[in-house]
């Protein structure tokens, strides 16, 4: 069986469409982030990991009524609790409810929120329950984690830039990192647009996506480098097009297969991994798209800009792989 035999698409001719597509999604994400910034003070809804606060997940024996839970909270003097029923993807609620309190400024009273929630449920709501999960995060830890997450993402991109610089050339690295940044932006934008919370595991997913998107880009770049060595007289746009077409089959297959595994995770992995697998589902689609639509055209655009500046083309002199 073969899907993509002898494909011959002029990808570079489509670059303005690609640009428009990317711009629409990036800008939509950015606008949504701006709106979040105004309403909640951060560009995306943050999970309790980063925001700090208290989150208690309880499972009731009988189907819970959120209004009655809210009343129970009010009766105990907890006015600012948010109550959310947990639904799995197949829309069955396991009688589980997530009760969250906003961040406590005072770290010494950090645990009080949880105790209050549990006590008020016991006192004012006659539906037996078990506590399934508790997360209490103080402002200090939240800040530290936020910083760590940002640093990790930056370092990871930087590490790859350096690796590509060493293995290829700087411009390849820059193009790949721009593509990765584009993927990250759109994925985070998707969280903002859909009002989904970003937690620690989502950051892990985004870092994975950085690595994955880089993978895809490198496969195309490797082929460009190889083809440049084989046919030195061919124009760069033709080489890039040919390389994308030659690797297209692999790109679509791998992405498709990884996408399927991640989709299985999204469907069967349960609520804990929901954000994580969502980020990967979006990220794999975007990451695959960006290596064809962003990274490769950037190489050509850079080359064209260089030749307009009257400088010699650098790309054809690509180094031999050292492995």
């Amino acid at each position, binding site marked *: 069986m073969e899907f993509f035999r002898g494909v011959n698409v002029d990808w570079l001719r489509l670059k303005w469409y690609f640009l428009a597509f990317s711009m629409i999604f990036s800008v939509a994400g950015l606008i949504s982030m701006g709106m979040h910034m105004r309403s909640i003070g951060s560009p995306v809804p943050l999970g309790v990991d980063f925001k700090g606060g208290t989150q208690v997940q309880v499972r009731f024996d009988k189907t819970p009524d959120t209004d009655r839970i809210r009343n129970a909270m009010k009766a105990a003097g907890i006015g600012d609790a948010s109550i959310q029923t947990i639904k799995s993807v197949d829309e069955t609620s396991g009688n589980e409810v997530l009760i969250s309190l906003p961040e406590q400024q005072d770290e010494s009273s950090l*645990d009080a929120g949880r105790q209050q929630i549990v006590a008020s449920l016991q006192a004012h709501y006659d539906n037996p329950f078990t*506590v399934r999960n508790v997360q209490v995060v103080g402002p200090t830890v939240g800040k530290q984690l936020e910083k760590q997450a940002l640093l990790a993402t930056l370092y990871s991109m930087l590490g790859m830039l350096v690796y590509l610089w060493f293995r290829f050339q700087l411009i390849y690295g820059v193009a790949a990192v721009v593509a990765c940044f584009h993927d990250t932006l759109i994925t985070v934008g998707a969280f903002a647009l859909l009002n989904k919370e970003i937690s620690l595991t989502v950051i892990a997913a985004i870092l*994975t996506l950085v690595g994955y998107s880089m993978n895809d880009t490198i496969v195309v770049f490797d082929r460009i480098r190889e083809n440049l060595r084989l046919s030195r007289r061919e124009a760069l746009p033709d080489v890039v097009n040919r390389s994308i077409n030659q690797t297209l089959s692999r790109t679509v297959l791998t992405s498709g297969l990884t996408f399927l*595994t991640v989709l299985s995770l999204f469907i069967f992995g*349960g609520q*804990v991994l929901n954000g994580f697998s969502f980020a990967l589902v979006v990220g794999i689609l975007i990451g695959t798209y960006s290596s064809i639509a962003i990274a490769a055209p950037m190489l050509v655009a850079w080359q064209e800009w260089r030749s307009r500046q009257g400088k010699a083309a650098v790309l054809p002199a690509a180094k031999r792989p050292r*492995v």
Partner: protein
Amino acid sequence: MKKNLTNKILLIIAVIVVCILGIVGISWIPLPGVTPKPLMQAVTDRIHYGLDLKGGAHLILQVKVEEAVNAETDNTVALIKQELKTANLSYSQAYKPDPAKATLIRVEGVPLEKSNDARLLLESKYSNTYDVVGGDAPGSFTLTMKPLIVTALEKKTVAQAIEAIRDRVDALGISEPQIQEYGLGDNQILVDLPGVENESQIESIIQGTNRLEIHAVVGGPYKDAQDAAASQGGSIPADQELLNSTGVIEGNASEAGVYVLQRASVVAGNDFRSADPSTNQNTGQKMVEFTLTNEAGDKFYDYTSKNVGRYMAVVMNDRIRSVAVIKSAIRDRGEIEGTFTTEEVAALSKLLRTGALPASLVQLEKRFVGASLGADSIRKGITAAIVGILVVMAFMLVYYRGSGINADLALILNLIVLLGFMGASGATLTLPGIAGVILTIGMGVDSNVLIFERIREEVRAGKSPSAAVDQGFAHAWVTIVDTHVTTIVSAAILFIFGSGPVKGFATTLTVGLAANLFTAVFVSRVIFDAHLNKLKPGKLVSI
């Protein structure tokens, strides 16, 4: 060539055997006289589940190290006073001028002609730990604890706190706890308690952050803080403090009152060696019998022998729990009587026995996963993994036919190596870790796709089967190395920056991809070569 191939096959078989042993463990091997464990139990015993799968509690605690520094300088102030007195050097006051600066001590009002003697004394005794500077005014000195000493003290405090927590956790019988310093020098402690079912169990570890101290009483009880201040001539000297009491004075319950105490404690948390609950035979009051360490015993003897007839206060968590008159000199045994309930006495004794905390702890973060949620997560994670694997394997079979078998074998071997590593190394498997396994399948199969697509291209270009396989592997290898390195770079950064669950993800992804280099490239190649050897001339590889 043939022999070479045999060697490679032997190597692969050896790896499989080692990895399967890694998964099931040595205990599963049926040895004479030993009943082997059932297979499933042998496997599950070897995999270390993380907190999110096993259930349990995760805490980040801040050690209030400044309290330890404060206590240390308080002690130094007391020592300085004593030494100046012994050396017959008069001074107007020795105190800590700024409550916000725990490291700062000032000595003031030494007569000018004695100023040099005082300097020599202070320098000879304290220049190891303090920077001694002649003050702005004549006859006054400023001692600042050296930053290195402060750091060392903070380190020691955190280490002691970790020890104390470990003792308590052990006393609760929690297996495989993880208690370690967290972060980079912020004096935080990470406590992971797997399998803790009951949330109140956690509380007993942390809420027992009581500090028990004995202080000398300067005066009291007073009705309120104002009265107390008035008794000391309007304001409380810096080396003294006001504390509330719900106290019992010599066995008689009294109204709540305010006492003035010496700030420096006579006996503090770490000075207690043991403690046991008991009851006063005469009054029926609950009390705690304690023994002190040798060093603290000497100090306590020194203090009590000089202060017979005066009062001392037992302070717990900055509240006076008991005030007692010193009847005679005490060395290392004593009892504390006070407003204790039976539970408090038991808790206090346990606390003292297991080592009190050198400073109080504040919870910065707490996560608690119920075992039922963990079990759900395992079930869901494994379902997702199996579905993912089956889909990928089925696709490879359909799309690449004969070579699909090759890819599927490599995939299964990849999982065996990964699980073998997890079992043998004792690395922790978390829910994101299972996600890492699933992702490894997707990304690992990429190597096979790269190679197969390349072989197809070479076949199309008219190469012979063996040349096509050869070229396919050679070209794809470069790409595979690049893609694996970049992914492993991002996973390594996750491992460094991430905590708990996320670390588990980085682990499985990194190991999975490293194993993939072996399975998808080396093993696949061997399978191809073995197949090519048997292939009749003129026939094509099934790809």
